[in-house]
């Protein structure tokens, strides 16, 4: 008889999911004072963004970034346009390149 084992496994997994969701709800309630404290930080320091990604202006402060500005990149920054991964760098034009005098 294999089916009681299977039904037991599914019931156990559903129970684990429900316990995790319930524990989550308890966690949300328990963290209410912490949430209040975070709101106080945001209010007092007049913060606007999460300190998640500190690699560029538009990732550190996405809500304040001048996303309308073109070319807001920096050397070796990760490509944020998919085209960057398939476009090869342009051929160096001899006429615009400074060469040391021999």
């Amino acid at each position, binding site marked *: *008889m*294999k*089916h009681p084992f*299977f039904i037991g*496994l*599914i019931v156990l*997994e*559903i129970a*684990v*999911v429900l316990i*995790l*969701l319930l*524990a*989550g709800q308890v*966690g*949300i309630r328990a*963290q209410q004072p*912490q*949430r209040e*404290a*975070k*709101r*106080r*930080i*945001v*209010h*007092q*320091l*007049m*913060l*606007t*963004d*999460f*300190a*998640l*990604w*500190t*690699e560029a*202006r538009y*990732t*550190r*402060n*996405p*809500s*304040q*970034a*001048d996303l*309308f*500005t*073109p070319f*807001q990149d920096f050397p070796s*920054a*990760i490509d944020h346009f998919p085209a960057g991964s398939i476009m090869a760098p342009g051929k160096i034009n001899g006429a615009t390149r400074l060469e040391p005098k021999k």
Partner: protein
Amino acid sequence: MQRHRKILEYALSSLLRRKYKNIALIAVFSFIVAVLSSVLFLTHALQTEAENILVEAPELIVQKVAGGRHDLIPVAYTKRIKMIPGIGKVTPRYWGYYYDSLTGGNYTILGVDREIEGLTLLEGDMPIETGECAIGKGVAAARRISVGEELVLTDGKGAFSMFTVTGVFSAASELLTNDLVVLFYEDIVRLFDMPADKATDIVVEVFNDTETPVVARTIQRLLPDTRPIMKSEIIRTYSTVFNWRSGLVLTMFFGALVAFCILAWDKATGLSAEERQEIGILKAIGWETANILELKFWEGVIVSLTSYLTGVILAYLHIFYLGGSFLSPALKGWSVIFPSFRLTPYVSVQQIFILLFLTVLPYVASTIIPSWKAAITDPDAAMRG
């Protein structure tokens, strides 16, 4: 009921006959569900956190735009903004970024012009005079300093400036303060060598929330070189930033998802000669088409439901108990200072059901349809393949 139990029993025996193939399928299926659910749980938790915490963000921020870029704003603009009816306090904000060549990290330096009290998520105190600072956990870890020690920064003129650390923000506030260095505003003006009559932007308090768009339009008319940013826009930014559909992680993962879909489709739709023969034999010994469909239905349910539930459990544990440790290398990108995710377990039940419908139903459907085709053919023809 007895009949259903017998068919389920037969389905389990049938799957166990090809146990290695099916165990591999369940493992890959669970992994795919776990990755998908992890991305969904993470983005939903961050989105909800943003909605809950950033409600206290400034009602309206005014930036100056020069040459298409954000520029320092004259403090004198505050007087002109104050004249608009329905406006409370108008405060210049002093902040900027600092690249620390010592650690390779970027800090966010913020200036305060008054004594701030009542911050419970801070070990120590906020700066109360020039020469003092409060720092985030990430900065403290990168510089290996704590309360009472000195933070040395290079100012705009190339000279070293020393600040005594009076407080370190606790780990619980990492999401907001990890890379933060809070200084007194005179210090930040000196550090960034900012002109005395300029600030980074201006925060405007609006008494009535519903009037904010009107105030924003008035400011833009009065000061055409400015760009007002409303709180609703800040919160909206976060709902689009954490949109899982446009995420890099999902893009990277898309190939694996398509590969799995092909595998599952092939496995479920293309009946092997052995399976076709089995259906033929079952029909020959008296099984009805409905019984065969029920058998295939149970086979599909066993594989997909087990994988789905395992995947969801793994994703939940991964995001809310292990801090999304497997996803974080992809999310971290080039950031040197990166907070550890201590997320509040906000889970949308709707998402759990959407995942169920996206994984279990298509799999079960794609198992039943080819079996139905085999089941309605003549048993003799089915047995011969």
